[in-house]
Structures are given as structure tokens and as C-alpha cells.
């Protein structure tokens, strides 16, 4: 089995998905089966094929640098669970951010 339970837990952590131990074991089997299925693609010879970055076949359309009206603050915050001082209130951040 090429996929380890550790890897599954790692991916779950990155996606902020909580996995119980039995879920993790089961998920490892399922995910591995999916990946196994996809390995069929490896049978194709792609030596002379350019990697596909995009399927639309368009070049990037560009927009002029013009300011358009924004939403009102009220509208912008409409779906926010905890709006405060015209900002989005969020819970305490445990881990330092990085980008």
C-alpha cells in the first residue's frame, strides 16, 4: 500500500479535517484505492506531450486599471458571523501565520 496513514493524517491536518483514528484507517484504504485507480494514467507514454496547465485554450484576458464601485461595508459583512467595528471578528489565532 503506497499511501500511509501518516500521510492521510497530514493531508487531513492541512485541510483542517478532524479524523478519528478509525476514520483515518478507513480513509487510508479509500484514498489509496482512488490513487491506485488513477495510476492507470501512468501507463500512457507522455514523453512528447506538453504538460497541460489549462484546458480552455485561451490566453489571459486583461482588464484596464479602473476602479469600480465596491460593496458597502454592510453588504461586505453580511455573512460574517461576528462583525465588529466594521471588521470581521475571528477567533484567536493559535499558530503564527505564514505566506
Amino acid at each position, binding site marked *: 500500500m503506497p499511501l500511509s496513514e501518516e500521510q492521510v493524517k497530514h493531508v487531513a491536518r492541512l485541510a483542517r479535517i478532524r479524523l478519528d483514528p478509525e476514520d483515518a484507517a478507513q480513509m487510508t484504504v479509500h484514498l489509496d484505492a482512488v490513487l491506485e485507480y488513477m495510476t492507470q494514467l501512468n501507463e500512457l507514454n507522455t514523453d512528447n506531450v506538453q504538460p497541460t496547465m489549462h484546458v480552455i485554450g485561451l*490566453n489571459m484576458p486583461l482588464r484596464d486599471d*479602473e476602479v469600480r464601485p*465596491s460593496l458597502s461595508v454592510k453588504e461586505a459583512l453580511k455573512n460574517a458571523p461576528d462583525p465588529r*467595528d466594521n471588521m470581521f471578528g475571528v477567533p*484567536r*489565532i493559535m499558530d503564527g501565520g505564514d505566506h
Partner: protein
Amino acid sequence: MRKYEVIIGLEVHVELKTRAKLFCGCSTEFGAEPNTHTCPVCLGMPGVLPVLNRQAVVYAIKAALALECTVHSYSKFDRKQYFYPDLPKAYQISQYDQPLAEHGHVPIFNDGAVVKTVGVRRIHLEEDAGKLNHLGQRLGDAKGSLVDLNRAGVPLIEIVSEPDMSSADEARLYLTELRNILSYLDISDLRMEEGSMRCDANVSLRPSGYTGSVEDLPRVEIKNVNSIRNVQRGIEFEIARQAEFLANGERIVKETRGFDDQSGRTYSQRSKEEANDYRYFPEPDLPPLVLSDVFVREVKDTLPPSTQALRQELRTAGVQPKDVEVILADHSALAFWRQATTLFGDARMVTNWMLSDLSRLLNTHGHSFATTPVSPEALVGLLNLIHRGTLSGRMAKEVLDNMYETQRSAEEIVKDLGMSQITDADAIKKVVEETVASHRPVVEDYLSGKEKALGFLVGQVMKKTKGQAKPDVVNKILKDVIREYAEKI
């Protein structure tokens, strides 16, 4: 002998000063009321599509060309995924394996001489994140945060250097020259204190005898330092900290560290090993960015003279290398210098007055060459009076102070205060004769070989003429009068 070699690479984020954001039409204005510049695109609402801002691409190409990069005709955008409250989509649209430009160079200068050339690995376009306001003193004990998404989606370029710098000082010189180059392109405000230019520094030490690759050395990243000076301080501290680890035979941990301005120390934010898994993949909402040669050439044609060309211009005019760097680092100083030197031929004199007395006044009053109350024309008015011999250097300083306060012309002030240098030899000779007559012992001293005595006599004459006599003229006349006196006795 040093037991290690310092390896520094810098990542610089620069906010581009487009009117609208990178992928939507919201304004990029800095300092607006929270969340007044947001829309479904930059809020990360479902079902929206980003459309790339042409001007941001143009600005990025300008930067790439000015930094001598190769601009790729084909680049693409990718999603960099992580969870953080300032990132509404939970991914940042950036460029990963096919950036806009690569393989550039920045020559770095110390007092006008090239120290080395630092490689630019890549330049890519990406969107900025929002701003977090923490409730509480520090992130660690904050009860929560408030998110302002005005900045989310503002265009950035990230400029990644090669790990070519080997001291904190070289890092400072690189940032200085990078800022010089970018500032003449007029593509960003470049205000580090406002965050429109941000720097992360990667610092590692290579122990002597280490034969592995630089990439495998434990690297410490100092994040988001808000001035060039602090980047330098942070790196200095980090080099010393890591050197101590090496000296004690301890392992340096790969991690991200913050910089504390007060103490000048870096502090651990978190270990990097776990978190750096961004699962980049091609942004499906944006087709590849294909740039024609014509497009790139058109941008190239709009580039201003390079900083190298500007250096040449200043040096050819006779400006000292050290002064060249000072003028070059400040747009408005260069504009001032150019205007003044068109009106007054002696570029060195213009430079001296600009960088000594006028700069001193500007600093004292919190002004700059952009806001100076003394215009280039006004300064040249003063220099003309010196040149004509109406004012001595010392008198001119006084007049400049007055010009600065009253914003009147040098000529008006000189007329009003009845200041003017006495150049009339007869008038001076009269004062000199009086002085010689009333200070005979000093004159004797001079005649018996005490050269210093002459200085005293010159001083007396200057005092009597209230400093309005021209010192070199006084000197000459004084010597003549003393010679006559000596012949008489």
C-alpha cells in the same frame, strides 16, 4: 579564522501602485476605512472569477526589465493554499513554477564602488492578503482578531534574490539599490513602514568543511521587518545567534523568526518543517499569461534611465561618489539637483550646499527635498551672491537660514540686512592698518616667525568688519601692510 560562511537571501514584496486591485475593480487606496474596498471577488465569494489587471502586469514587467531579468513569454498563476483569517479564499493566487521573470541582477554599491552583483532568482505577481488587527497586546495573548480586507487582492510582486549576500551590510546595500531602482520606475510607494515594501531575510551559516548544498542548510527566515536598518539589525543578531549554536555544537533549527525592534533580537515564531506545505496547483480560473515580444518591448521603451545612467550623469558633473549615492537615493533630491545645476554651472558647489547646509535645515524642520521651502532657484540665487563675492561662505549660511524661515530671496535678505562682503581693497586696507597699529607686539611675533600670529590679526580685521571682508583679500592686504611696516623700522 572564521569557522563558518554567512549566506543570506532576501525575499522582497512590493505593492504595485495600480488604482485597482489585481483581480477586481476595488480601489487600492491605503488607509481607507476598514472593509470599504471589498467586493465578491476579493472577499472570496463562491462563483466569482478573477480578471487580471493589465497595469499590474506592465509594472511587474518594468521591475523585471530594470532588474535585468528575462521576462518569460509564458507564465502561469497557481493557488498557494493555507488557512489564515487574512486570506478569505483560503488560497493566495500567486505564481509558482512558471513565474513572470527570472535570472536578474542587482549590482550593489558601497560609497559608489560596486561591491558585488547579487542575482535575482525570480520575480512573480501575486495578490496581497488582508490586515489583521489583534485584540490584545500581542498575537500570543490576543483574544481574537478583527480582519480588514481592503488590502486583500492588492497587487504585489515578489522579488527573490539568490543567496548571494554574505553580510548584514551587503543585505542593506542590496535593499538600498533595489529600492533605488524601483523608485525610478514609479511603480510602488515603497514605504516599508506602511508595508508597501516588505522584506523577509533568509539567513544560514555554512560551517567550514560543509560540502552539501546550500539549500540543505538549516535556514532561518526573519519575517516582515519594517525598515532596511532593521533588516540589517535582524540579520546581525541572527548571525551571532547561529554562530553561538555552531560554536556550542548545537543544531540550528529551520524556523521562522520575528524581529523585535526594541531589543534588536529575533524570536521564534514557529518551526517551518511542518507548515510549509502549500499544495500549489495551477489556478483553474486564470488562463496562462502569454506576453508577446511587442508587448514587452513597448514596456521596455517606457523605462526611465537606469540608476547606472543616473550615477554616470552625476559623476560626470563632478559629484563625489559618496554624494552621488545620497542624491540617487532620493528622487526629489535628484530633481532639485538637476534644476539647480541647469541654473548654476558649478555642480560640486550645488551638491555641497544641498547636502550640507540645506539638508541640515530640512532635517531639523522635518522637511525633504520634495517639501523644501528653499527652491532650486532660490538656492542658486544664494550661490550667485557667493560666486560674485558679495557673500562669504559664512555669511551665506546665515542668509540661507533666513531664506528658509522667511522664504525670501537671498538678494532681498542681503539688501535688507545691509549685508555684503567688503571687497573694496581700500576700505579693507584702512581697517588693516588700524589693526596693525594697535597690535604691534603681535606683528612683531609674526615677523619673528610665528605664523599663527597672522591668524589672530585676520580675526581682528574680520571682527572689525563684522565678517563682511573677504578673508583671502584680508590675508593678502595684511601681509602687504606688515611688509611695509617691517621696511619702515
